[in-house]
């Protein structure tokens, strides 16, 4: 692994001297985390037993609250305290003087610095990406198990309960631990650079929001270990199944809280950074579309995520405290879960897509050497999706038995939302039109996204129409739809982003041949796996069931074989990334000849991004426009300032 280049070695405060002996137990780090986890676990346990004793609830020892509080709340808090995520605030709370000029926790001098609480947005971005790719691989392996089971009708390897756990954990990891945070990771790295800011607005909050992720991911995976098995109610965790099912559901409900808290903190951080830290001259209408995309996404996160947090709290309380929120037998409103869940989770599909729109806009404009077509409309359509996204949630509930009058309004808003999405698709096409295309790996992913996402959008329109949805609800048609939008859509854009910014992040170039091989293997494998699902879905093969009717055997065998090929393509990706990071050829500061600010500094950028804050003078996408400039730095900046004066 490469170490970050020293731009100005004198910038750093001297690194903390390594602690020795007993002091190592007190210095922030994994050692301190171990005993603090034990300590906090004890506190949690005492809390549960104490409250149960005072309230007179029997039996005193009851697994669900012990799991929820001691294992899944206070112990992780102990971990965070141990690694030092709260050190600054403890310091503050005790009334000690603060030292804002202390940058000892900032930047990476060796690979070890990636394994501690680090306040540099670039380090955090890489931490995010490596962690999320880890969970992507874990979630992918679970999918391989699912496909192995489905290769033939009947039950082969897993009993139904285990099978349900497999696809539930698969989907939850992919959504909460991969797609959403991988976008946050890319944006963490890129957004401050694009804005001409030295870091995010709240670097310590940023560090904390990263460290919540491994906690959430390990929580989901470890639910396999408890008696009763993993949570098995799907990534949607519908009540009452998630209330009466195995205690593994507690792991899901708590992991969602941790991942959700992480998302909200990051989103606040992005919003504040984008609003208050733009370089001079960087008006909203000069921001790159990636910044716009993360701005709207962050608004969605801040507004919607509390709803999923609440839905999981209610389901958790129903189990742990015996409340009746979703228990129909004692007056609870069971459909309430779905309403509250989808009020978050439909906007969440845009949380999983809008940042990708931003990435694709960057890549397509740069690789076509043309200004983005309809820049303002691109930004405005993001905002339109933001607002419309809150008015469509019940299209996931057409067959749930909800109030029938809700159906048609929800159908209309659902179909309306295709309009701003369509605007974006046509803008990208118009940008490519007559461009000077550079078919590099990121561009291939972007074009792959464009074509696959349109297919996913079209099946979305089918599903949005009530009569068709009633026929295809809970069939493989829905599975095909979500994979065309999330895999062919979101995941393809994440790959586009990773390849596009790889030289910036590592200072090295990836292997273009392997990159292209990865793309084509994935593209073919993806279509071979998921396209047939449309067909068997329309014919009525139900989703989320371990067994199926023999008439679907041939297609399923084909799909399983294709999916193993698809899974194997990831090996090419991992090999390319690791190998190129270690010994790829050195990358220049601006290998794509892009105009946006992150490419105007060295690769990787200096610790504080810029020596002086750049001056923004024009639009970010004026490719092929003679003499056009987005920003001026260094000497030029001084001249420009004088000229303006």
């Amino acid at each position, binding site marked *: 692994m490469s170490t970050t280049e020293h731009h100005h070695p004198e910038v750093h405060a001297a690194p903390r001297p390594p602690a020795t002996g007993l002091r190592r137990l007190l210095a922030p780090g994994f050692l301190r985390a171990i005993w603090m986890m034990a300590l906090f676990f004890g506190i949690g346990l005492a809390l549960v037993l104490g409250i149960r004793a005072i309230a007179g609830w029997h039996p005193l020892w009851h697994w669900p609250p012990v799991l929820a509080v001691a294992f899944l709340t206070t112990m992780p808090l102990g971990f965070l305290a141990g690694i030092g995520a709260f050190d600054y605030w403890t310091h503050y709370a005790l009334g000690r003087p603060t030292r804002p000029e202390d940058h000892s926790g900032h930047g990476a001098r060796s690979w070890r610095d990636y394994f501690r609480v680090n306040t540099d947005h670039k380090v955090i971005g890489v931490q995010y990406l490596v962690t999320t790719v880890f969970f992507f691989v874990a979630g992918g392996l679970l999918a391989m198990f699912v496909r192995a089971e489905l290769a033939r009708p009947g039950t082969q390897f897993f009993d139904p309960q285990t099978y349900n756990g497999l696809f539930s954990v698969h989907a939850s990891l992919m959504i909460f631990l991969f797609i959403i945070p991988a976008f946050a990771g890319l944006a963490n790295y890129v957004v401050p650079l694009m804005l001409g800011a030295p*870091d995010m607005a709240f670097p310590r909050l940023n560090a904390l929001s990263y460290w919540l992720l491994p906690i959430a991911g390990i929580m989901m995976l470890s639910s396999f270990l408890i008696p009763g098995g993993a949570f098995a109610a799907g990534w949607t965790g519908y009540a009452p199944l998630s209330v009466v099912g195995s205690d593994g559901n507690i792991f899901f409900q708590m992991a969602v809280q941790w991942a959700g808290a992480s998302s909200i903190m990051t989103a606040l951080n992005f919003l504040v950074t984008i*609003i208050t830290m733009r*370089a001079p001259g960087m008006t909203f209408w000069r921001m790159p579309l990636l910044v716009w995309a993360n701005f709207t996404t962050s608004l969605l996160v801040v507004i919607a995520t509390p*709803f999923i947090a*609440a839905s999981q709290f209610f389901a958790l309380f129903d189990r742990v405290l015996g409340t009746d929120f979703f228990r129909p037998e004692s007056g609870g409103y069971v459909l309430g879960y779905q309403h509250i869940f989808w009020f978050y989770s439909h906007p969440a599909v845009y949380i999983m897509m809008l940042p990708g729109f931003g990435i694709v806009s960057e890549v397509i404009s740069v690789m076509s050497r043309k200004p983005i077509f309809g820049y303002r409309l691109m930004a405005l359509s993001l905002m339109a999706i933001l607002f419309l996204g809150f008015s469509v949630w019940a299209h996931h509930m057409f067959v749930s038995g909800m109030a029938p009058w809700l159906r048609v309004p929800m159908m209309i808003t659902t179909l309306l939302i295709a309009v701003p999405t369509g605007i974006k698709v046509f803008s990208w096409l118009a940008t490519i039109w007559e461009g000077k295309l550079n078919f590099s790996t990121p561009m291939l992913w972007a074009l792959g996204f464009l074509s696959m996402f349109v297919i996913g959008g079209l099946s979305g329109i089918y599903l949005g129409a009530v009569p068709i949805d009633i026929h295809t609800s809970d069939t493989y048609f829905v599975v095909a739809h979500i994979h065309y939008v999330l895999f062919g859509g979101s995941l393809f854009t994440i790959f586009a982003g990773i390849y596009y910014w790889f030289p910036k992040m590592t200072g090295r170039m990836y292997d273009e041949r392997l990159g292209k091989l990865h793309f084509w293997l994935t593209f073919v494998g993806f279509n071979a796996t998921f396209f047939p699902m449309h067909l068997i879905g329309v014919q009525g093969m139900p989703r989320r069931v371990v067994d199926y009717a023999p008439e679907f055997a041939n297609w399923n065998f084909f799909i399983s074989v294709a999916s193993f090929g698809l899974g194997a393509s990831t090996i090419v990706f991992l090999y390319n990334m690791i190998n190129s990071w270690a010994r790829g050829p050195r990358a220049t500061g601006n290998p794509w000849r892009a105009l946006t600010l992150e490419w105007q500094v060295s690769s990787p950028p200096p610790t504080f991004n810029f020596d002086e804050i750049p001056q923004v003078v024009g639009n970010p996408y004026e490719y092929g426009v003679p003499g056009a400039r987005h920003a001026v730095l260094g000497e030029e900046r001084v001249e420009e300032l004088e000229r303006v004066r």
Partner: protein
Amino acid sequence: MSTADAHAGPPVAHQSSRVSAPVLGMFLFIGSEIMLFGAFFTVYFFARVVNNAPAWPPEGLELPVLVAGVNTAILVTSSFTMHWALQSVKRGSRAGLQAGLVLTLAMGLTFLLTQMIEYTRVGFAPRDGTFGSTFYGLTGLHGAHVFIGLTLLTFATVRAFRGHFTAEHHHGVEIPGIYWHFVDVMWIVVYASVYLL
């Protein structure tokens, strides 16, 4: 910043908005909190209105409207003392700051204790039907927020007594203050819908 010491740390970020970052951050966080309360109100609405609950509160249960009303008055007053603390530090009066914070803390604690005593005496538990669930849900969520607010105020108080904060630099008072006002306003909404409606 002169070029000589530009190398001693990050370049000073350009401030592109009139609001300061921590204040904006707190407002956005409050937006998120309002949504969280919104979800709790939604489930309350489902249980009471959508499900057509026959009697609310169910036969034989009664909420201590008056005691909670007095408690509401205490919490609302604490918003004024909080405001006074902030105005004092802006005028440079440390004594006013300290007194304001201590009074606010005391009233907040009183509120929380009263609430806990109320829990032991209302005569129903979270597991007693949707009425119990939503009552404890909303008041408990709010109580947790009072607790967070008090924690933040404790930080501010400790620092106020240790000589921090000046007429120019007092974000550490202002921001917990904003949060505290939010907690108070939210209580009025919770009180009105749970106890009065």
